[in-house]
């Protein structure tokens, strides 16, 4: 990420010159107070927002130069997990995960095999036929993670994945994310969870006022609440 700026049309300058380099297979926390530009930073990584200036390169592709019609292909290489899970309520757990593979026109056979594989990773194999509302919050987030990684993306982006969960469930989620990271997927995770950041030490990037205020290899949360 090279000298990235983002100014919204309403004049809000959300990101003002951020330059970072994230290595393949790294695990990075992004922390910072609300409104500091964290979300914008994350959104630019999966190209929901376009930087007004600067360039973002993921896996050799420059996101700011990518054509509108090629965005879908970029996103297939990036898994995204949200605070509010964003599952489809009418589909079962299996279908929700399979959805991401249907979209890229995988064969039924491959879909079935791979979906069961990821459901095993997130330990939900026995709940494949459940509907999202029959699951707990933690389980729903695990489904969302399964969906995010089912196409074996190079990068997993998580926007406050534990924001809606209790501490114990949060740790469950974190162990799964860590496992995914250990299998070679780069993880970028925005979070407000001090407990997790301080106890599962990883590289930490703090954003304040649209700029990087700290970048530590094994950083702590560091803010007073």
């Amino acid at each position, binding site marked *: 990420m090279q000298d990235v700026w983002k100014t919204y049309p309403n004049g809000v300058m959300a990101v003002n010159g951020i330059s970072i380099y994230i290595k393949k297979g790294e695990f990075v926390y992004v922390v910072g107070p609300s409104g500091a530009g964290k979300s914008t930073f994350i959104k630019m990584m*999966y190209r*929901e927002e376009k930087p007004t200036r600067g360039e973002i390169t993921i896996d050799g592709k420059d996101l700011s130069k990518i054509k509108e*019609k090629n965005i*879908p*292909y*970029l*996103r*297939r290489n990036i898994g*995204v997990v949200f605070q509010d899970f*964003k599952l*489809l309520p*009418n589909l079962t757990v299996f279908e929700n995960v399979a*959805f*991401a593979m*249907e*979209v*890229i*026109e995988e*064969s*039924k056979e491959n879909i079935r095999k791979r979906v069961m594989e990821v459901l095993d990773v997130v330990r939900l194999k026995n709940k494949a036929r459940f509907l999202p509302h029959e699951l707990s919050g933690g389980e729903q987030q695990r489904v969302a993670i399964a*969906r995010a990684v089912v*196409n074996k993306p190079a990068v997993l982006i998580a926007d406050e994945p534990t924001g809606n969960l209790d501490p114990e469930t949060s740790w469950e989620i974190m162990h799964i994310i860590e496992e995914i990271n250990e299998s070679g997927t780069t993880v970028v995770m925005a979070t407000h969870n001090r407990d997790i950041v301080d106890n599962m030490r990883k590289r930490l990037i703090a954003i304040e006022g649209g700029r990087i205020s700290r970048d530590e290899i094994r950083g702590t949360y560091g803010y007073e609440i």
Partner: protein
Amino acid sequence: MKFRTFGRHIKEGAKNLVRNGWMTFASVSAVTVTLFVVGAFLLLIMNINHFASSLEDDVEIRVFVDLTAEAEDQEELGESLSDFNEVESVEYVPKEEGLEAFIDSLGDEGDYFESLRDENPLNDVFVVRAEDPQETEIIAHEIEDLDHVEGVEYGRDIFDQLFSATDFVRIVGAGLIVGLVFTAIFLIANTIKLTILARKTEIQIMKLVGATNSFIRWPFFIEGLLLGTLGAIVPISVLTFGYVRFYEAIGKSTGLEFFEFLPVYPLTIQTSLLLLGIGAIVGVWGSIMSVRKFLKV
């Protein structure tokens, strides 16, 4: 696109119709009502058009041959009339025949004119029909300039009024149909937009997991197509059935010999296909139009 994917799109489109039960019902009703009105107008306009063109076909030019013309001159004139490009037919009516017809048309009173048979005051006449009735006036003027022509007659006043009336009906009819079709598109676009609003998250998620725009659009395309076609079924059957009944009851014998309704076939088939086509286009257009703005995520 893979064949398997196409199957999926059709399934998805149909599933969405069922899932959005009431919205589907609303959209289909909107199409039904509009197509019904469009169809009724189509039948009406096609009949008026038919009436108008049968009137137009009756427009003829009567060319009076010079009394002094010899038989050869007449023949020559007949040939040069047939040589006109725009002329459909030329019919020769000798003066004897003309008088006969005249006397007949008067009935009993025709007897007074029987004496004329010895000294026929009428001209020999060529009856000319133009290929396109609207050209009649121009042709008539050209004929006037030929040799051995005493005069031409083509009912100038009726002619002008007739054409301005039929043109008016056609233009108003076409305008009405176009207006109705656009209303239908607008109605469908709006109803589908409401159903899409509910599916906004779904589209958003599809975009986030890397679905291409066309992949997202296809089910909506199918859905619109189905909505339009479903909406066409009721108007098609009601109008066809209604017209058959109407035609059987009064259509065959209007009591006016110059005006008859169009027969059931092929009119109803044409109208049905047209309505089906309009329904399909309206549905597809409406749904594609409303999905467009949700694709920008």
